[in-house]
């Protein structure tokens, strides 16, 4: 793993200046996507295009937590995304332009890059009372979403709110909030749930898209399997304690200090799928269970209402936790879980699934790097 204290200028090494860095970066991407090593040159070629693909990032009923999460990405860094890999032409949180100039930038993308750009959506979309609960430049979020997301090449919903309405939609849903897919029926959306999304997964999805012009294999919620295909409980570093019956009984007790299982404190890990325990957060530094707190299943569907109260112990999780409710996890993931019991590595399972769906696709990657 990269040193946590590498010197600051990593983001400054331009591709032209340091070929070695770039190759290293391509290797990292191939590893993140669990692709065979021969894909390194394909990734490199895709990322060296002279015209950079255009991305717009829309914020609606949001807390900007997903934007902030994106600022923490390392492979690639946000500077590499913004300056080298993509042309990131609209994003309220960080773009230079404001007001009229910002809106003109968005309109120009929709007009001049129709069918070509990536739209990322953050936040829920209010539908009650004609959408008056969120307006930007005098237009409702609903109108903007319909306008921008029906002309894009791909739509990515980041975070729980853009996926299924998230917290904004939690009971009693005062503003009639929904996620992108429900707000704009018929458009293709990749959902990257989580509160917030883990930027390592989003970076991998974007890189996959840049390389293959296609999205990785998805589950029934249109979530990439490499990130949402495995149960947290099965990947948890505290799993051995669960199997041995060693539990935290009270906050701060001896078991808590020794890193025992948090199941009795309400941990939702046995019911949640995500690669949170393996990818972790903030350059792999930690994840909630390592900080001593139970999982709240933030990547699960409608988790605010379906997984709370968060400190209530889950009922009936039997030993060797492969038992999951099928309607929660879904049949695709359940299949993956069975495989995970053998392999324990998401990459091995999905390796073949994330190749382009059609081998004859004109845009298929160059395999010439194969050794």
């Amino acid at each position: 793993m990269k040193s946590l204290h590498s010197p600051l200028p990593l983001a400054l090494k331009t591709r032209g200046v340091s070929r070695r860095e770039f190759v290293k970066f391509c290797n990292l991407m191939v590893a993140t996507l669990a692709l065979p090593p021969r894909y390194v040159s394909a990734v490199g070629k895709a990322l060296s295009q002279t015209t950079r693909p255009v991305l717009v990032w829309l914020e609606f009923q949001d807390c900007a937590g997903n934007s902030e999460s994106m600022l923490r990405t390392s492979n690639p860094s946000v500077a590499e995304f913004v300056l080298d890999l993509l042309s990131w032409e609209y994003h309220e949180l960080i773009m230079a332009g404001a007001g009229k100039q910002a809106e003109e930038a968005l309109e120009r993308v929709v007009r001049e890059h129709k069918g070509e750009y990536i739209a990322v959506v953050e936040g829920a979309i209010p539908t009650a009372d004609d959408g008056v609960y969120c307006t930007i430049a005098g237009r409702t979020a609903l109108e903007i979403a319909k306008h921008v997301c029906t002309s894009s090449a791909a739509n990515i919903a980041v975070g729980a709110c853009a996926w299924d309405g998230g917290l904004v939609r939690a009971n009693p849903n005062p503003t009639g909030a929904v996620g992108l897919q429900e707000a704009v029926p018929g458009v293709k959306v990749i959902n990257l749930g989580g509160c917030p999304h883990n930027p390592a997964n989003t970076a991998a999805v974007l890189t996959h898209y840049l390389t293959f012009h296609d999205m990785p294999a998805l589950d029934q919620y249109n979530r990439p399997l490499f990130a949402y295909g495995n149960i947290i409980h099965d990947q948890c570093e505290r799993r051995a304690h669960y199997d041995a019956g060693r539990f935290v009984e009270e906050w701060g007790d001896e078991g808590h200090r020794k890193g025992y299982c948090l199941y009795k404190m309400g941990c939702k890990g046995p019911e949640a799928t995500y690669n949170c325990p393996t990818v972790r957060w903030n350059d792999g530094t930690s994840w909630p269970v390592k900080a001593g707190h139970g999982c709240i299943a933030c990547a699960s569907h409608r988790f605010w209402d379906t997984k709370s109260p968060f400190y209530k112990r889950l009922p009936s999780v039997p030993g060797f936790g492969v038992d999951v409710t099928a309607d929660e996890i879904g049949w695709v993931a359940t299949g993956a879980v069975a495989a995970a019991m053998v392999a324990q590595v998401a990459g091995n399972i999905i390796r073949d699934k994330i190749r382009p769906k059609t081998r004859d696709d004109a845009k298929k990657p160059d395999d010439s790097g194969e050794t």
Partner: protein
Amino acid sequence: MARIVVDPVTRIEGHLRIEAQVEGGMITDAWSSGTMFRGIELILRGRDPREAWIWAQRICGVCTMVHALASVNAVEDALGIEVPDNARLVRNIIAATQTVQDHVIHFYHLHALDWVDVVSALKASPAKTSQLAQSISDWPMSSEKYFKGVQDRVSALVASKQLSLFGAGYWGHPAYHLPPEANLMAVAHYLEALQFQKEFIHIHAVLGGKNPHLQSFLVGGMSTAMDPNEPDATINPERINFLLEVAKTAIGFVNQVYIPDVLAVAGFYREWFGLGAGVGNYMSYGGYLQGSIKDSADFFLPRGIILNRDLSKVHPVDPANVTEYVTHSWYEYAGGDQVAKHPYQGETNPKYSGPKPPYEFLEVDQKYSWLKAPRYQDQPMEVGPLARLLVAYASGQPDVRALVDATLGKLKAPPAALFSTLGRVAARALETQLLVNRLVGWIEELGNNLANGNVRIHNGEKWNPATWPKTAQGFGFFEAPRGSLGHWVEIENEAIKNYQAVVPSTWNAGPRDARGQQGPYEAALVKTPVADPDRPLELLRTIHSFDPCLACAVHVVDARGHKYARAEA
């Protein structure tokens, strides 16, 4: 005479719209509008108060954790829980880390482009840039080769004709004064700060599992179990060393990059020490407990109010004097919209009465915002780093006194210069310097407790809801990066009966009240010059100097619980 509209105001958190009247190259009147509403307090009703913080934290993902802390403070106040010393220290470390990181991101990524012309950096001489950088700081990344590399990267961007995030900027605007070399240096530091914020926040990852939206708070303490001998304890000696190393690295960046940059930029824009003053009243609830929570006087950054820019007197803060108006907000009060209500008596019936979207202008003589207008004894208050610094300065806090006097000396400016747009920028930088130094001390205290075998991190006496009274109410105060934050909670039968938050950006960004008094943003914009109404760069400077956080600012309190029939299964 022209009406200008900036919507969206970008490089902020959330959705803010400013309308302003411009006459003779100057703003004569302004209106601030929050254009998004979620209703999180309503969603909290009926839920377990022990998890309120998990929900409330999602009020904001930029100043993530501040609502979590205010929330556990409120519930602990209601239930009479005192947290262990270690939990207080971990909370201080998390909060100070948040503020330092937030302030750095604000200066470089949200505010700098109002002062720095990115395209002008192409004209800079890398050799002269290197000389400039070395003349103001001993930061090692200052060679000619280094700045040439940054310039090449910007050149490649411009040559590609795809300027990405920088595409719609006001480059070449006459209000930009920095020489090309200062612009190039600032662009380099913009990129370095992107790397800094990501690595510095590893402190949150260790103590919160992740950032944004940390997951280690508990009513009664923290989940970060401590043990000097257990490798799997969240806090152990190896982790303390890691935190210290990250914090000390941050001191270098703040002292050698952030502070010199702010002083350099201020030197080229001195006229902004005389612009953007605003309402002239400043409030701080007090931040960072030094000892017991029961001793509300013992804050690192003290509590108090400054009125009418008079630094000779610090007035006390009494929460009973906080009220909110909805005269110009899209809500209704049963007793009429001309009266103000205290949060405990507050009621909110959202009722949009603005123009039907899509619209061109708001009806600013009527209701025009989703923000209410908070007042203290009927006076508008500015909150935030400048307010905290002024209250601390006027209170005679020795660290603040020394730092402010030294800085004003360097800038050859009187204390009155702080009542300004640039005063906010400077105060934020100085607060960062104070807190990043104090941060190391708190980590060391935590390490000492660990070494001495004091590992108590949670007070579990009231964890079981069966131990609670049938009804309870409490409030939690906290000084978030953007200012004074208060959460109020009422508990009945082990569930939340009512939940309320009065947050920093509501104080600053709120609309007019029944008497027509402007909110702080609105007042600060008056007399701001606007050279080109089509590109109102100067307006952005003053608004950004407050560091707006609009998702935080829009909230709803509905004490009577009506009008929400849109429940879902």
